[in-house]
């Protein structure tokens, strides 16, 4: 790479890091255009509202690397938000303490939420149903089941603790006086400026994303995922149990969608069937911006997070500016096509640096 002329190296740099540069440019632009964007609070808002896209994007990353697609993540998210809300309300009403009912509800939902993914995986891996069709059917089924569970009325009457977790922060600081974790400092400091740092839901999300990002990047499981996406036949010949692996991939996708649903429940203290319906497009777009190819074999969790940030910054920026969300759809569509065109025009540039 050292031998290449400077302008060529610049081009490679642009091709490789265009998403990062786009994010920086976008952030600078919004910090001028909208008031209160580049503040501690503004940045936390971006992450707070972005959790769903981050989690669904990570789910989609695993699936897309294997060359598949998962259309059901949005409605699995809604399904999980309803199931968790229902279980927690039922437990709380029967006299279990809020903390226990929330813990039990979350664990049970995590387990139930693996079922749609497992079925997806079986259909795709064992019965060779195209992922598009299998997961679309699962979309319809989870949508129907969710609507049946709530009968058109969003789940409510969740214990207050859910709200406290979902909208609480990891660290609270009153400058020069006190630092506390998870709980607001006691009432004696009323009137002081309270700094709230890192929302809880962001902590939860990034722990999960970090673990699975590590798995994808550093473990054999991750290697096999890329191998299957790159060339299924070669992967089979190399002795990878492709069927089991693909099933696991769809289970992971469902796991992330379920986590997104539970976090939605904690954040908004309700469960809704269409909680994640609007995020399907965003999550796929984020993965593609992050450098993945729908033909499989390419993509990283880091890239996806970058893609998610581009979308989250765009959405929050437009919202703070007071621009209608209609423009968001157009912008997302344009960015998506732009991302793929860059990938098409500079393939050798982007991948030579690897």
């Amino acid at each position, binding site marked *: 790479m050292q031998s290449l002329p400077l302008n060529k190296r610049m081009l490679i740099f642009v091709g490789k890091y265009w998403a990062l540069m786009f994010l920086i440019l976008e952030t600078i632009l919004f910090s001028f255009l909208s008031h209160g964007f580049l503040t501690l609070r503004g940045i936390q808002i971006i992450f707070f509202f972005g959790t769903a896209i981050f989690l669904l994007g990570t789910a989609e990353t695993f699936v897309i690397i294997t060359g598949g697609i998962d259309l059901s993540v949005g409605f699995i998210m809604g399904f999980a938000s309803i199931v968790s809300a229902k279980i927690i309300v039922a437990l709380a009403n029967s006299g279990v303490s809020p903390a226990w009912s929330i813990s039990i509800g979350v664990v049970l939902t995590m387990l139930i939420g693996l079922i749609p993914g497992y079925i997806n995986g079986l259909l795709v891996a064992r019965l060779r149903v*195209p992922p598009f069709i299998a997961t679309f059917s699962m979309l319809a089924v989870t949508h129907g089941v969710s609507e049946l569970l709530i009968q058109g009325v969003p789940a409510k009457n969740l214990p207050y603790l859910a709200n406290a977790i979902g909208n609480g922060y990891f660290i609270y600081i009153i400058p020069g006086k006190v630092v506390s974790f998870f709980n607001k400092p006691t009432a004696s400091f009323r009137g002081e400026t309270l700094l709230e740092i890192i929302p809880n839901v962001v902590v939860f999300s990034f722990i999960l994303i970090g673990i699975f990002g590590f798995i994808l990047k550093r473990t054999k499981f991750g290697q096999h995922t890329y191998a299957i996406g790159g060339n299924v036949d070669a992967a089979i010949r190399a002795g990878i149990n492709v069927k089991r692996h693909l099933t696991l991939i769809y289970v992971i996708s469902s796991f992330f969608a379920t986590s997104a649903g539970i976090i939605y429940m904690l954040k908004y203290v309700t469960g809704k069937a269409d909680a994640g319906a609007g995020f399907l497009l965003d999550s796929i777009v984020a993965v593609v911006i992050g450098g993945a190819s729908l033909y499989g074999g390419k993509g990283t969790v880091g890239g996806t997070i970058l893609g998610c940030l581009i979308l989250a910054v765009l959405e929050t920026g437009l919202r703070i500016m007071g621009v209608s969300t209609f423009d968001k759809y157009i912008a997302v569509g344009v960015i998506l096509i732009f991302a793929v065109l860059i990938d098409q025009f500079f393939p050798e540039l982007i991948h030579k640096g690897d």
Partner: protein
Amino acid sequence: MILENSEISGRIDLQKKIEAVAKYWSLIFIALLMIIFSFTGKGFLSLSNFQNIVHLSTVFLLLAGAETFVIITGGIDLSIGFIMGFSSVFSAKIIQVMYSGGASEMVSIVVGSISGLILSLIPGIVNGILIAKYRVPPFIATLGMWGITNGITLKICQGFPISSLPPKLVEIGNSYLLYIMPHKAMSFFRIPPGVADENIRNLIRIFPSSLFFSITVLTILWHLLKNTKFGQHTYAIGGNMDAAIRAGINVKRHLIYIYTLSAFLSGLAGVFNVFQTGIGNFTPYNAMYELFAIAAVVIGGASLMGGKGSIIGSILGVLLLKILENGLQISGIEPFYRFIAVGIILIIAVIIDQLFPDLF
């Protein structure tokens, strides 16, 4: 073990029977559904209900027709639902502006519809160019167009349906070829004069304009796909792209035509929707028309890998889904079961396709 001759021929017979069932399973399924619903749903098996089914299917028949062409080439078009909303809102807006500006009903309707149709070509051409010339995967290109058309549509209508359109629209969209008042009167195209309002329930309406419209469009599409060079090339591209290029087919141009045709048909569906409902309705982001259309096409025997599919199959797919929906509704079953049923039937369709790959 050596099999007896008769045993072998018996097995072949059985296999042939299974193959026949697999090939026409959607037709058999429709028949089964109709038998079941005729017991469970009061009024399911009636002329007016069937015309109702056709009326509600019109838009989906067009969308499925559009998707059939795209899927046969091995592509996918996710933007059709929003192109439909786009042309609906755009043509309704023009009709509204012209009508309120004093233009006559017919002029504003004609100008509005035609400009809606012409404008709906643009997203299709852009899709086609992105996919054919710049090799953007169809999923991504049309997903991008999904967002763009959705945003533009919402900007035009500001999130509200466009109303106060000329009443003639609904009259055309909901008219029937033949009206019969038993023992009294019969007339073509309009309600017989002198029918009192209290008797209007007894009026028999035959052959809705939507049926006429769908039959016309679908016949043209069927002919285009089955009997013309254009159709042959479509199958050729889906079957084996490289072979198609070597056979001298201008694949790039053909793909641009295919996506333009798909967008045009979606635009047609949108404009007809204005005639049916009398308002310019945008497509809600979770309406999933495109997924419904893809489901119908796959139930009709197409493969997402390309090279397979037919207009008749897609029509059967739409009818299956719509009859299922209508029957469940008439039988008093909650609408939520419909989603589940659609999902399960789709899976059955694909598994049948997988089990008997040589049949379709």
